[in-house]
């Protein structure tokens, strides 16, 4: 015991004398951190503030629920909102099975060998690849090679391919964060690896998996480049119908509308462009809030029953 006491007590001088240079250095670093944080916050508030300031006046019920009128110079943006919702819903369904299976594979079956690390590196770099690259991929494969032309289906699949790496990674993280004690508990009962995955790991990881899925596809639905090259249309005069025919029709949507709004230079009034911008921001914001509420409700249910 005597030797133990000697080890535990550190250099007494270090505890009693004040180390001035170290303290001032730590003060400087905390001030500069605060400054950077403040500037970042200012930037975000500035961007959001501008959009809200300029977009809010046009954000009326009519604006959200009506079609454009008078050659886009008046009316609302309902077809674009509808298109974005459709794009996102289809993307979500398309990416769900592949994303979850990929995440399960990386987390539980790939192991930690060289091949697994390589796959991981590939998925991670794909997740960081600019969306325009996926747009070109969609253009080459779905629009040109498969001859689907610009259509909703091509948009779905392009956005799904774009979201896939991120969904795989968020799923993998959600699965890896399931406590090992639960997995050991299931295995010790004699459950097979697959039963353990299906009955214990996945239900536990599900809140994380689904919220990752919603956030990722929500972000994807806000991306203009992939849609620009595969599915987007400025304005369709044909009547929209919710049936299988829509799959091979191009579709209006918020980010494309916004991009075109500026490219056309003055055809669409600024008022409508800013309104669209705010709507797109709210669209993504609502999805994020929805995902957070959804996740905490699921967690709460698991705890309380």
């Amino acid at each position: 015991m005597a030797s133990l006491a000697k080890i535990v007590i550190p250099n007494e001088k270090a505890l009693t004398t004040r180390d001035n240079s170290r303290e001032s250095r730590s003060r400087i670093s905390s001030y500069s951190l605060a400054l950077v944080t403040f500037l970042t916050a200012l930037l975000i508030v500035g961007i959001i503030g501008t959009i809200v300031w300029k977009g809010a006046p046009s954000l009326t019920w009519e604006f959200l629920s009506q079609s454009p009128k008078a050659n886009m110079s008046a009316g609302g943006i309902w077809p674009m909102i509808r298109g974005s919702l459709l794009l996102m819903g289809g993307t979500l369904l398309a990416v769900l099975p592949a994303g979850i299976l990929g995440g399960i594979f990386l987390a539980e079956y790939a192991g930690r060998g060289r091949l697994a690390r390589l796959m991981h590196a590939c998925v991670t770099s794909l997740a960081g690849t600019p969306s325009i690259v996926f747009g070109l991929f969609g253009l080459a494969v779905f629009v040109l090679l498969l001859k689907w032309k610009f259509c909703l289906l091509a948009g779905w699949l392009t956005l799904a391919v774009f979201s896939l790496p991120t969904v795989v990674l968020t799923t993998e993280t959600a699965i890896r964060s399931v406590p090992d004690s639960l997995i050991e508990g299931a295995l010790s009962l004699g459950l097979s690896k697959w039963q353990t995955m299906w009955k214990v790991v996945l239900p536990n990881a599900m809140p994380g998996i689904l919220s990752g899925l919603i956030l990722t596809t929500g972000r994807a639905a806000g991306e203009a480049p992939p849609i620009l090259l595969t599915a987007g249309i400025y304005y369709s005069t044909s009547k929209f119908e919710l049936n299988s025919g829509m799959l091979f029709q191009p579709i209006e949507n918020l980010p494309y509308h916004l991009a075109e709004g500026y490219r056309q230079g003055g055809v669409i009034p600024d008022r409508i462009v800013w309104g669209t911008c705010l709507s797109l921001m709210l669209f993504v914001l609502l999805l994020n809030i929805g995902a957070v509420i959804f996740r905490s409700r699921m967690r709460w249910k698991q705890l309380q029953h």
Partner: protein
Amino acid sequence: METTATLEGSISETHMSAKMPIVHVRQLSVSYGGVKALKEISIDIPKNAVTSLIGPSGCGKSTFLRTLNRMNDRITGFRCDGTVEVAGVNVYAKKVDMLSLRRRVGMVFQKANPFPMSVYENVAIGPKMHYGTKGAELDQIVEDSLRAAAIWNEVKDDYKRKSGLSLSGGQQQRLCIARMLAVRPEVILMDEPCSALDPVSTAKIEDLVIELKADHTVVIVTHNLQQAERISDQTAFFMFGELVEYAKSDILFNDAARRETQDYVSGRFG
């Protein structure tokens, strides 16, 4: 080291014949990535009895426990030599059915690990997955298991709705015992099941362990020497990956043959 592999002399002949070994281990050595954790352990653990494994931290007692149901397999670099037989199953044979082995050898962990589902579902999952049990029969198994784990009275009103996670620590541990009992294991491995519990909960688990030995064989790792003496029929003392001494508990705690054991149980080190 020539270890006392069986309980020679310490248990009477009649006693021995009534309690045939259900765990039979010979020359077991275990290493993790080349680091030896267990060195040539040979031990027989009798049926329908409680056997404690004691020793300082890192002595290999948990490693030993987890070789009995192959829970160490998940650790990378794990390697083992020697023979391990549990309930007639050659545990490390190439073709062993791991799932049926683990069904016959249940385990309770240091930290209670109920699944995030209802108390009922926690207990029902084993029989459902293994035997496809359902309906009234499953209800009965769940109730019996909860009763056997002495938690029925505390949860009977809302056990189909209440989440296993909303129970107290001691209740969670008994729920885990019920969950394990529901698959009807022959051997029960307990890895410091009381280390995170208060004295009242600990006493409940100890009573439970003593009741369980009527139909099960219990092997329990514990740091609580009084607990080992109270509940176990025999005790094995591990140190530095070796089995130093193995004897009936009252002998090991009061009249140990080896100096290291005497020092440890009297609190002179460890």
